[in-house]
């Protein structure tokens, strides 16, 4: 655990010093999105990687956070922090309530149910025009502020988003090495065996589902206040699949992997303009190829490769041992 905390501290240090080394607001702006997507990917990983429960409706919780925050601040003049808290509470209650019937389902059925939930929420964003502004979106959401400090530049947004993202990652690292983390992995391997060992699988699954939903919701609120505009197309089925892709690329259960997956899928389209039209093909291929050849994800794949290389180099391996 101590080593884990050291690793985390190192990671946090790098993240917090990065803005000093780059010039130009554009890259910084992209890195803000990397932060938001990292939060979402880590949240999904808690559910998918640790507990082994798939959700194809994560974008719905993200969208609910963004819309509840957006509507309360832009249309009703609430304080952004208060609206963030209210959104998180509302989504938490919603996730907890629907969590019981949804997580009773397994495998394909669970995937379909979460997908169905995601699409219902997406349709509501589009059709509830009086409140959400419909397909054309909801403009004029105020930015975050903290006393007299207003998060109105890319640099300030970077620190706001990444503080939240680091907090989420720390939480996930802690969770992974706790009793709950071990119980979740037991559920992943065999729910029946976990229950025989005294794990309340049903409750624990709902709790981690709720936790994942609330994190996604907070990420959505932060997104709304950073971008100051939300529209339904950001929160569709496509984005839920993109999140699953991030987690799979990084590796199930690997927190830094989720960061890597989020960073890759956020940066690639930005730097490969040609990628724009091909992104859907690339996601599909990535999902298939990763599941088939590198089911452990990039981080684990790199470790395997590293070990194989060391075996090829007997002299150095001897020194290390």
């Amino acid at each position, binding site marked *: 655990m101590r080593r884990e905390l050291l690793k985390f501290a190192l990671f946090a240090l790098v993240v917090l010093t990065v803005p000093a080394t780059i010039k130009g607001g554009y890259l910084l702006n992209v890195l803000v999105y990397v932060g938001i997507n990292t939060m979402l990917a880590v949240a999904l990983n808690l559910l998918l990687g640790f507990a082994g429960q*798939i959700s194809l409706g994560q974008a719905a919780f993200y969208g609910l956070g963004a819309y509840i925050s957006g509507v309360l601040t832009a249309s009703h003049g609430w304080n952004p922090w208060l609206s963030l808290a209210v959104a998180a509470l509302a989504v938490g209650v919603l996730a907890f309530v629907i969590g019981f019937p949804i997580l009773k389902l397994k495998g394909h059925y669970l*995937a379909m149910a979460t997908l169905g939930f995601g699409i219902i929420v997406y*349709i509501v964003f589009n059709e509830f025009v009086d409140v959400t502004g419909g397909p054309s979106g909801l403009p004029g959401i105020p930015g975050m502020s903290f006393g007299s400090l207003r998060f109105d530049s890319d640099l300030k947004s970077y620190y706001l988003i990444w503080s939240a993202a680091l907090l989420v990652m720390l939480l996930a690292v802690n969770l992974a090495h706790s009793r709950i983390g071990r119980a979740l992995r037991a559920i992943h391997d065999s729910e029946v065996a976990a229950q025989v060992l005294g794990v309340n699988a049903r409750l624990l699954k709902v709790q981690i589902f709720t936790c994942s939903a609330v994190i996604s919701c907070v990420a959505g609120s932060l997104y709304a206040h950073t971008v100051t505009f939300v529209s339904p197309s950001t929160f569709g089925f496509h984005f839920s699949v993109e999140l699953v892709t991030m987690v799979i690329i990084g590796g199930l259960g690997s927190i830094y992997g989720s960061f890597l997956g989020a960073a890759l899928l956020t940066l690639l389209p930005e730097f490969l303009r040609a990628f724009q039209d091909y992104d859907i093909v690339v996601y599909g291929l990535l999902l298939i190829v990763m599941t088939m050849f590198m089911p452990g994800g990039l981080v684990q794949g790199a470790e395997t490769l590293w070990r194989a290389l060391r075996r090829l180099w007997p002299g150095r391996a001897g020194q290390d041992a």
Partner: protein
Amino acid sequence: MDFSHQLSQYLLSGLATGAIYALIGLGFAIIYNSTGIINFAQGEFVMLGGMFGVYFYEILKFPLAAALLLAVLCAAASGVIFERLAIRPLRRATPLGLVIITIGGSILVRGIAMLVWGKDTHALPTFSGDTPIALAGATLLPQHLWIFALTVLLIAVNKLFFQFTITGKALRACAVNRRAAGLVGIDVRRMTMFSFLLASGMGALAGIIVAPLTMTSYDVGIMLGLKGFCAAIIGGMSNGIGTVLGGLLLGVLESLGAGLISSGYKDAITFIILLLILFLRPQGLFSRGDSERV
């Protein structure tokens, strides 16, 4: 138009859409029963049917009947290729892995279709004109009759196939117990491939007969696929009459909901039904409860 006429109109058009959902749902059930896989890419073969049809008819200028036949064959072949490349190489696949692979496959197919055929919406011509037919106060297009006729025909052929041919019986044996089927000499892998062939062929046909009414484009597969799945769930994943009834029920409820409540929430109605069924009766509406196997 008075209310009863309106109602019969909703009913008839609901039954027509429901027949389409039933065909797609049967594809889900066939694959699920012989392999235990829910093929998330099923909807994409429905799209491929319609798009291949447009391609052969509009671009290569084939006669309509030939174009449609070729389209079904091409889509069914794509189904087999999909199975060969994405499903068969997976050994010891977890349900989670299969979900992810078939989702990956579905967006890959959709993406390729978008790159090849573009993002435009296309329509096929109706099979025999557009002269409306009046029936019980409602108006029907000849295309609706084609949908009903082809669906009934396909379901009958399907039933006969599973009941009386040796391949059909072998597929049913795989559904009961794959290992035992292998022990009595059934080539289980070939049967898996065969179930993908059947399912994608049926899906493609559904995609073709509905294309003249609702248009088609590279991204129609998700919705149609999900609705087919919903039909199969209502029917308890049977590859028989249950799924057909499920599809018809879904089509009618959706049409009534769109007409009487709100057309914007039409698709939401389907998914609320899907969630309710999954929560309350995951074994389907028409079957008795099955004990859960661990």
